[in-house]
Structures are given as structure tokens and as C-alpha cells.
């Protein structure tokens, strides 16, 4: 599937991702050390004992020494130790939470693309019918509502109004029982995360499909006697996908960053929840780790989207 040129392109992008991740984490490192307050100081731990604890974590050294140590650790994949959860290495935590966020994000992306394209295609081929109006209106509502409103609404519906139907176990999923990968636990937060973006995809797909299905090659395909479904999927949808893929990059970033809100609402132990907690706890090492994780996730997701072009449109080469 991938040519040598494409593989070289992937290699270059990976190098750039590494540099970007290093740059982001360095900026966060330097910025966060300018903030007032820290995780260690408390009513019980101050004075000499506080200084001793700072010494233990190397936080009493000059900033440049700390920075050099941080960079050395980063290069070896070591993001340091948590200050609140003392001594616990951060790298495994960030990797685990990154996988949770990626899992939610991936299902949200499936919702985004699946629902968005379905709505868009149906609205296009049933243009100016009641179905078009319903789907278009739904799309407008979708991208008019922030994801936290949708999330809260879903909790209201499935957690409270449909309590009898869900046997109360909907709430059991809030707080995450630890079964990562269970679609039953993922689909609701993923829907809340993906639906606003699905609405954008729906509108774009509809517009794109309307343009494509009026092209001569579609008329030719019909004249050849191809079935309507084949025409729509193989000739129509495939060509209509290019502009959708183009906005997929920003959408993926939106989904990843939107996870901060959704994970906190649903209590999902991903990067987003850690992001909020670590800032509130002033656990700076974890904040840096989470930013690093996010930078890596965004970089890799963008690379994945760019590679999709090659799959969708064989004319595109890197």
C-alpha cells in the first residue's frame, strides 16, 4: 500500500512528532515552574522538612539543572515521578491513560464518521424531502450544542429518566469499573464526544455528495446499469470523502481535547481526567507528562489522517 516515498514521509513525520513533543513538554516544563504554589507544601510540611523534601525530589536545584535532568529523562522515556503520589513513575500512568483516551477517542471518531457520513449521504440522496430536513436539523442541533451539554443530557436520559430500563447500571459505568474495551461502558461518552463533530461531517458530506452525484461520471455509471447502492458508495461516496478527510485532522484534535471535559463528566480515568486533577493537585511532573501524552496523541492522530489520503485517493503520493 505504501511506497518507499510514503515510508520516508512517515519517518520524517515521526521525527517531527518527537521534536514537537519535546518542544511542547519543554515549554510546559519552563512555564509550570513559574507558577506559584506546589504539591508538597502543606500545613504539616513546611520549614526545614519542606526544604528536605524539595531536596529529595531535586526541586531545590537551579532550574536549568532540573531542565537538563528532565530532558535526559525524556530521551529515555522517563517522565519522572509524581509529586502527589510520591515516587510513583509517571510514564506508565501516562501510557495507560493515553490508551484509555485513545480508546474513547477512537470510538468517538467512529461515531463521528459513521453518523456524520450516514446523515450526510441520506440527506443528499433524499434532498429536499422530510428526511433531508430532519437530518439537517439534527445536524444543526448537534454542532450547536457543546459536548458537555450533550453528556449531561445523556446522563439525564439514560441515568435518571430511563433508570428502570437501564436497571440502574448505567451509573455503575460512571466511574469506570476498569473493563477497558467494553463497548457498553464506552459508547455513551464516546457518543457525547463524537456527536457534535458528526454533525459537521454530516453537513460537509451532504454538500460534497450533492456536488458529486451531479457529475457526468455518475450519470455514466447509471447509464451502464450499475445498481444505485454501488453508484452511491463506490463512485459517489468515495469521491465525496476527500473534503471530509481534510477536516478530519482538526476534528481528531477536537475529539482528543474534548476528552478533557467528557472524561471528567463520566469519570473516565484517561488523560483528560488526569489533566484536570494534576493541575488542581499541582502535580507538575504529571502535568508535563499529560501534555507530553497529548502532544504525542495529536501528532500521531494527524499523521494517521494524512495517511488516509493515500488510502482514499490513489493519486495522492508522498
Amino acid at each position: 500500500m505504501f511506497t518507499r516515498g510514503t515510508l520516508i514521509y512517515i519517518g520524517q513525520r515521526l521525527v517531527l512528532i518527537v521534536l514537537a513533543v519535546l518542544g511542547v513538554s519543554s515549554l510546559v516544563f519552563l512555564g509550570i515552574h513559574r507558577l506559584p504554589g506546589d504539591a508538597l507544601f502543606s500545613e504539616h510540611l513546611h520549614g526545614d522538612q519542606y526544604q528536605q523534601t524539595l531536596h529529595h525530589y531535586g526541586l531545590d536545584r537551579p532550574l536549568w539543572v532540573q531542565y537538563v535532568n528532565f530532558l535526559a529523562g525524556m530521551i529515555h522515556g522517563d517522565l519522572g515521578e509524581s509529586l502527589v503520589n510520591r515516587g510513583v513513575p509517571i510514564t506508565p500512568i501516562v501510557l495507560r491513560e493515553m490508551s484509555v483516551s485513545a480508546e474513547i477517542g477512537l470510538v468517538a471518531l467512529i461515531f463521528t464518521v459513521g453518523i456524520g457520513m450516514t446523515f450526510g449521504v441520506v440527506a443528499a440522496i433524499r434532498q429536499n424531502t422530510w428526511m433531508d430536513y430532519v437530518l439537517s436539523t439534527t445536524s444543526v442541533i448537534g454542532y450547536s450544542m457543546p459536548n458537555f451539554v450533550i453528556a449531561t443530557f445523556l446522563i439525564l436520559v439514560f441515568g435518571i429518566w430511563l433508570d428502570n430500563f437501564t436497571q440502574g447500571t448505567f451509573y455503575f459505568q460512571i466511574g469506570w469499573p476498569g473493563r477497558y474495551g467494553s463497548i457498553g461502558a464506552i459508547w455513551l461518552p464516546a457518543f457525547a464526544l463524537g456527536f457534535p463533530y458528526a454533525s459537521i461531517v454530516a453537513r460537509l458530506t451532504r454538500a460534497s455528495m450533492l456536488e458529486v452525484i451531479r457529475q457526468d461520471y455518475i450519470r455514466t455509471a447509471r447509464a451502464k446499469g450499475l445498481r444505485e447502492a454501488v453508484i452511491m458508495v463506490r463512485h459517489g461516496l468515495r469521491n465525496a470523502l476527500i473534503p471530509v478527510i481534510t477536516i478530519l485532522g482538526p476534528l481528531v484534535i477536537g475529539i482528543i481535547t474534548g476528552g478533557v471535559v467528557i472524561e471528567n463528566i463520566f469519570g473516565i480515568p484517561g488523560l483528560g481526567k488526569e489533566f484536570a486533577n494534576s493541575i488542581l493537585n499541582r502535580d507538575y511532573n504529571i502535568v508535563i507528562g499529560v501534555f507530553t501524552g497529548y502532544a504525542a496523541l495529536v501528532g500521531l492522530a494527524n499523521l494517521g489522517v494524512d495517511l488516509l489520503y493515500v488510502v482514499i485517493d490513489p493519486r495522492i503520493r508522498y
Partner: protein
Amino acid sequence: MAPTSFRILKTLALSAVASLAVVACGGGGGGGNGNLASDQTLNFPILGDFGTLDPATADAETDQEIQQNFQDGLVRFDANLNIVPDLATAVPSASSDGLTYTFNLRKDVTFSNGDTFTSKDVLFSWNRAAAYQGAYATNLSAIQGYDTVAKNKKAGKDLEALLEANDPSVTMGGLTAPDPYTVQVKLSQPAGWFMTAIALSGSTGWIVDQKAIKNDPDNWWSNPATAIGTGPFKMVSYTPKQSVEFDAVANWWGSPKPTLTKVKIDISVTNASTAITKYEQGGYDIVGYGGYSNLPVADILRIKNTSNESAQLLLHPKVRSYWVSFNMVHDASRQAGGPFLLSGGDKAKNLRLAFALAVDKNALVQTVCQGIVCTPATGGLIPPTLIGHMDSVDPLSKFDAAQAKTLLQQNGGASAVAGLKYAYDPENPLNVATAQFLQAQWQQNLGVHVDLLPVAHSPFIKARLKGDYVLSRDGWQADYNHPQDWFDNLWGTKLGCPDAGCSTGYTTKAYDDLQAKADAEPLDQAKADYAKLNQMLIDDVVYIPLYYSVGAFLIKPYVKGAGTNSFFDNFWNGISIQSH
């Protein structure tokens, strides 16, 4: 034939319904029949991961609540807060000069990995804790040689090497082991509080296994293979910020023998309301354990009004007090100044009293805590159930708007206290509500406008201890049941007042002298002197008492033996799960 798009839509709809069906399984429990359940697993959440389970550096309530179930001290507090023997065979008395304690150790104790417990472990644990200089290192400060060890700067494997070599830099001279089952402690000066301090669970007086720590001195406590203690439970798995599990130790040496076979603690939920909902849906057996009994008032009110769950709610006074501190010293280090200084004499004292009397503490408790999660601090700053709590009513806790107004008028009027700010840390919602209530009371009852200054917790504490605020939120959670914990850690030169680590700056020679005397006395003798110290604070109007906190717990009816005292959760080895 339906178009492809319709089929896709149909598939999506079916998937959604199927997902709902997957979600809609499981359920909650019912009442008990008095028999033990076959599954003796206790589930509860803690709303934040523990900081550490290393007694040398632990300083959070959650840490200690966990540690008290898998580690031990030579002595400990029982459910009634009496000091009882733990790894020692008896609670020793001080020698006649008050300087020597001799502990005889139990000979039947083993760590959960099978290692035998001896006096060597005590020396290692205590010297190590003094060398690490964690938040509670000063609990050992009465021991001869502590000051030398406290200067240690080594940590990790370097420190372990020094400890193993009995290097003088990390060895307290007053701590010796005449034989494998005897430990002798010599104090540098009499300290009536010493026994209470080392009984504090999960803290510097508790015992660790040198062999287990040796290879991973910093993180031994987070690895089930090395998180070794002498307690009735042992760690079997731990995923940071996710979950931790403990199993009962087979043939544990102590009593009562644990009935629970497993304790599963969920660390993934950080929101109390979410935890309560999960409890109500059968996901947990208890909520509020592990130092998280500050459940949201709205949830407690809702549960109180239910017919089936109100009986599961346990409200119990805890050992935290809240008050307002005045800045009482102005010097090169303490920049805040203000109208309440000790050097201001009677005028400043009367202004402090005016501010204290202008606050209706009963109304505060109703407004801020809905009359549930706190009670008015009417018996001094030391909460009820603790030694040192006043028998009489603290005069500073009274509400007398008329007298407050008169005092203000007689001492300069509103202009004397113009431009004041009340600083507080808004992370705790009660602090926000309290600040707003105080502002309204001072405005209404004194005609004085006080601005509110919210500051993030950590910078707030730093600035307060530096003397940067004229009026500030203050509070203390008792570490152990001894008045010394309060009078040594909040005021006086011994703490560092006026210029180091001191919210008010308050210190007088009379206070320092009496404090030194009280600290050196056995508790029975010292009580009267601590009461006099308390009276000094009242006479000098050092604080405005606000409220004592109340802990809230939810406990399923089939969980027997769970509960709390004012300090800590009931031990896991006294809990059982009934059939339900």
C-alpha cells in the same frame, strides 16, 4: 429494497439499542440475614490516590487510613483513642526522671513476607524516619540524637547504606536495643506527648521491614512484593490512580483475626457525588472511608430524606477545627501589619473581640453546613472527644452584635479597620461559603466591609505562614489525641513564631514558658497547664472560632463492624460482610 444508507442507519440504531442492553445488567443488594456472606470482599472508593504508604514520609489522612491496616507501631490508638500495646507487649511508663521508656516487644510477630520482627526493625524504622524528615519526623524529635539525624541530606539507596552501616549521622544515640526484643528510648528532655506521637498510625513511629525496603527504598510501598508490614492485610495489587487490593494475611499473629478476605479500593473515581451514586447502585459497600468523609452537603441532605438509605448514613464528629486567624505581629518578615497587632495593646485586642463577637456561629453552621457537616466551635479550638476540649463555653464563640458594635465604636470605629481583606483557599466549597458568610456578618453587625481574597491552597498556606494576611481562614486537623499537637504546632516560639511557619505570629514569654512546662509533664499533670494556655489564647483574642467538622459515611446494612471514631476509620479486621 432499502437503500444502503437506510441499512447503515438501521445498523447504527440496532447497535445503540444493543449497547444499552449491555449496559443494563447487574444490580444492587438487599438486607442481611445475620450470616456471613460467602464473598468476604469489601469494596470502597478513595477519591484520590494516596501520597505514599511509607511511614517515614506519609502525611495525608488517606495514607494513614490505609497504612493502619497493614502496618503497626509499638503502640497504637484503640477505637476509644486510648493508647494500647501493638507490637510491644505493654505500654511502658516513663522512668522517674521522665527521660527513658523501655519497650518489650512481642516475640510472635512476623511481617507478611515471613520475616521475623525484632528490635532491629524498630531502630531501622525510627532512624530512617528521622533521617527522611517527612512531615511527621518531629514526632521523634524528643529522642536523644534526633537533631543530628535531622540534618541528614541523603535519601534512597545512599541513606539505606548509611542506615545499614549504623552510621552515626543517621543513628539517634537515644535509641538502643539491648536485645532482640527490647528497645530503650532515651529522650533529650521529658516529653509527656511522646507516647501519643509514636502511636499515630501510619506515621514515623511505625515499623517497616529493612529487607523489603533495601532494593527499592523510594518506591517499596507501591510494589506488592515489597509493600510489607506486620498488619492483618497485605497489598496484592496496585495500579496507581486506578485501584489497590489487599488480602487478609493467613495466620496473622494479632487479633481480632480478619473476617474479610479481600479489600478492593477503587481510586479511579475522584468525584464524591459520582462515588455516592455508584454506592447507591451497588458498586461500593462503603463511601467515606480512607479520609474522604467530607461528602457533599446536597447529597447528604438528599439521602437523609430517603426512607431506605437514611439509616445507612453515619454522621460522626471528626477532629478538624476551623477558625479565623488575625495577624498579630508586624516586622521585617511579616509584612501584612493591620489593626489587630499584639503591639496595639487593648485597642487592637478589642477590635479583635469585636470581629469575633460579630459572627453568629450558629447561623454560620446552618448556612454553610446546613447544620449537618459541621457544628459550632463552642468549646475552644480543640474539638469534642479530644483531650483539651473546653468544658465551658469559649467566650470567643459567643455572638453579641451589640457589644461588637460598641467595642468597634470605642476603639476607632470603622475607619480603624478600613480596607481589610479576608484570605481563604476556595478549593474547599465550605471555605467559600464561610468567607461569604463572614463578609456579610461583619458588614451587617459592624458596618465594616471586608474584601474577600481567594488564593489557591498551596500559595495561600505559604503566604499565611509568612504573615502575609491580616485576616485569614485557618484550621487544624489533630494528628493525635494530645493538646501538645495543637499548642506546639500553631503558636509560640517553639513553632517558629512570630516569623516562621506561624499564621498569627502569636508568641509571648508567658505562653512559651507554660508550653515548655506542659510539654514536659505527664498528660494528667499537663492538662491543667494546657487549659491555661488555651485561656491565654482566649484572653488575647487570638482567633475567631467557627466550627468543628463532621464526617459523613454511607455504609450498607450488610457491612458489620464498619464505622469511625473521631480520628480514623474502624480497622478492616473488625469488619465482616453479612449475607444479603
